[in-house]
């Protein structure tokens, strides 16, 4: 009896609301009794009941105004019923008993109210959690990208259950790695990786609360698609914490959703890779086809000339023989040039890019181009103009010479017999501007659109590739951080321009 009383007292005194309600209830009862003793007017008691009910509500359970008020009113009505002589044959006049009954009933009311209050509080939390849970599921449905999926799962665990967690997955080499952890700085020991490995192998949960790996503070749960384990979610439980069925079920729900999201994403990623690979293969095939065509043409020329010389040795007069030899030389030279173009490609692109820029004096580079042109096109007059002051530009000289040679070559071959070509270098803002200009037939509109794309030629003309050379030029210039354009000049002929970024001046 006393223990119960003691327990009750403690329980009452713990909560502010309960304290206030108890005090007011007792005061109320006391006053009621006094009033009754003084005025013998039961109805006054009811009035007081209402007043005190309002006082209590406004002080404590604002939301439970009606509830509190009606409880206390009911209480007072009961008292009234017990005291009003008109209603009861033997009204209670035993004051202590009355007090006791009132107190007991008040306490009953209060515990009811507090219970309801608590329940509503928890149901709010519960509905918030439900919302969060739903939101997580939705997020997983629409998540894109594995990192985003992983972090959604982990933040859900963190927000729903307030626990830290880790997501383990297999990397490309098949090793177990922690793909995501929440919080970021969570330390994971090697034993956890071993536990995750075990789960990957068995497909069953392990860790805390379970066998095997029950030493682990984490509960490892596999995310499965069919029988394949896609990932392992490890949730950290502190010592003494337990997991209830509700939590297990919810986690299971999140996990199922996450597993299908991961599966979906992996499939999408694979598809993407396949697409990219296919595209790359197609481009490579196009490129190789174009190159083969370009290599075959001069080789054909060389083979024919050689076989003619060998076959009809004595019957060919010296002038013709000379001509054939010159042709062979020219075709071979073209092949060399083509090979160098191809080597430039390897220098510019790919993981083993060997593009190295050094500061070069522009006129020296131009001088080299002039010298080579003189050898290859002795009949072409190359007019050169560079700034008065020595111009220093960072570049891979070999590649830029290659670009200039390509441009000059195109000018010679496609201008339709023009033998005067201008090569100019100027500066504009922080760039060196190189132009190669001819006075020939110019570029057709179709050509201008596809200038820098390696064209797949269908015609059988023996003239050599316009496409490959220019597309390589573009790669080189781009790798230098510059730009290249081709257009028709206002007078006749075509003009190609490229820029190279310049550092500060000498």
């Amino acid at each position, binding site marked *: 009896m006393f223990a119960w009383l003691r327990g009750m007292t403690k329980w009452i005194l713990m909560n502010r609301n309960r304290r206030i309600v108890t005090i007011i209830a007792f005061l109320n009862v006391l006053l009621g009794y006094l009033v009754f003793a003084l005025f013998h007017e039961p109805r006054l008691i009811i009035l007081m009941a209402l007043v005190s009910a309002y006082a209590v509500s406004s002080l404590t359970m604002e939301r439970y105004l009606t509830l509190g008020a009606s409880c206390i009113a009911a209480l007072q009505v009961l008292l009234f019923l017990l005291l009003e002589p008109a209603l009861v044959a033997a009204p209670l006049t035993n004051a202590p008993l009355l007090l006791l009954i009132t107190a007991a009933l008040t306490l009953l009311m209060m515990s009811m109210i507090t219970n309801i209050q608590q329940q509503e509080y928890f149901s709010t939390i519960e509905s918030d959690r439900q919302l969060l849970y739903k939101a997580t599921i939705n997020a997983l449905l629409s998540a894109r990208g594995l990192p985003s999926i992983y972090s959604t799962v982990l933040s859900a665990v963190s927000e729903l259950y307030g626990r830290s967690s880790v997501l383990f997955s297999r990397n490309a080499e098949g090793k177990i790695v922690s793909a995501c952890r929440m919080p970021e700085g969570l330390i994971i020991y090697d034993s956890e990786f071993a536990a995750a490995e075990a789960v990957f192998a068995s497909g069953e949960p392990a860790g805390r609360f379970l066998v095997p790996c029950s030493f682990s503070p984490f509960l490892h749960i596999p995310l499965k698609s069919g029988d394949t384990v896609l990932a392992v979610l490890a949730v950290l439980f502190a010592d003494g914490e337990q997991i209830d069925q509700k939590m297990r079920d919810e986690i299971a729900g999140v996990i199922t959703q996450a597993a299908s999201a991961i599966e979906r994403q992996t499939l999408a990623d694979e598809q993407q890779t396949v697409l990219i690979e296919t595209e790359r293969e197609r481009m490579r095939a196009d490129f190789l086809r174009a190159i083969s065509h370009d290599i075959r043409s001069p080789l054909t020329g060389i083979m024919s000339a050689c076989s003619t010389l060998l076959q009809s040795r004595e019957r060919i007069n010296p002038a013709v023989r000379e001509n054939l030899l010159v042709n062979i030389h020219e075709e071979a030279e073209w092949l*060399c040039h083509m090979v160098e173009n191809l080597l430039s490609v390897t220098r510019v692109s790919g993981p083993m890019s060997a593009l190295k820029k050094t*500061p070069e004096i522009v006129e020296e580079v131009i001088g*080299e181009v002039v010298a080579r042109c*003189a050898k290859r096109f*002795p009949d072409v007059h190359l007019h050169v103009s560079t700034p008065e002051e020595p111009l220093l530009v960072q570049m891979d000289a070999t590649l830029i010479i290659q670009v200039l040679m390509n441009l000059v070559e195109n000018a010679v071959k496609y201008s339709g017999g023009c033998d005067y070509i201008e090569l100019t270098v100027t500066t504009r803002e922080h760039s060196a501007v190189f132009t190669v200009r001819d006075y020939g037939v110019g570029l057709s509109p179709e050509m201008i659109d596809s200038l820098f794309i390696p064209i797949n030629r269908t015609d059988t003309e023996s003239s050599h590739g316009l496409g490959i050379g220019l597309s390589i030029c573009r790669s080189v210039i781009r790798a230098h951080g510059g730009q290249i354009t081709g257009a028709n000049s206002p007078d006749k002929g075509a003009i190609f321009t490229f820029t190279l970024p310049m550092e500060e001046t000498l």
Partner: protein
Amino acid sequence: MKKRTILVVEDDGYIADVLKSLLEANDYRVLSATSGKGALQLAASHVPDVVLLDLGLPDIDGTHVLTSLREWYEGPVIIVSARNQEKEKVQALDMGADDYINKPFSASELLARIRVALRQADKIAASSASPEMSYTVGDLTVDFQNSRVYIAREEVHLTRLEYRIVELLARTPGKVLTHDYIISSVWGPYAPSNNNLILRVNIANIRRKIEKNHNTPRYILAEIGVGYRMADAESLSGPKEKMDS
């Protein structure tokens, strides 16, 4: 006149044949080696006048052959290498090669380089007699004695550094000198850190002073990525004459 001997070190059979034909047609006696070891043996037993060394040999690295050769051989060594390998060329030149020629080579260029190399060697052999007093090519005259440079008899005012560069190049006309060689010869051990840049700028200034058109130099020829070369009489009367500005 006794025929000069050239040791051709080339592992590619076709190219070796072509070289042999070319050189023999031009009055040289040709020794052929297809490996580094063979080359060293032949060199030791015949002591050729010139060695033509391909850098891409099968058994030992061409540069190793060069170093081994240079332990005792004092004649000119010309290296043959692919076009885009400037670093290799510069390394070989700094390790004792005298000149280089690119593959694929033009016959006339190869013969010219060999001639220059032989002339240099002869000069060195005879230099104990009297050092050169001046060098003239085209309109350019470099007076070593008085440290003056003339273009078409008019004096060109060069700074001390500029003159030293011109003198260095003029003493070995036709032969390529690497950037590093020029820098260490002209600036010595006190070369500043951005010495390469300073050299290039100096050369650019020299060019503006002695060449008619700095885009088409006749006298001081730039070998991109490698170094510089002073023209000799032969290289002047080439197709370059046709190019003007």
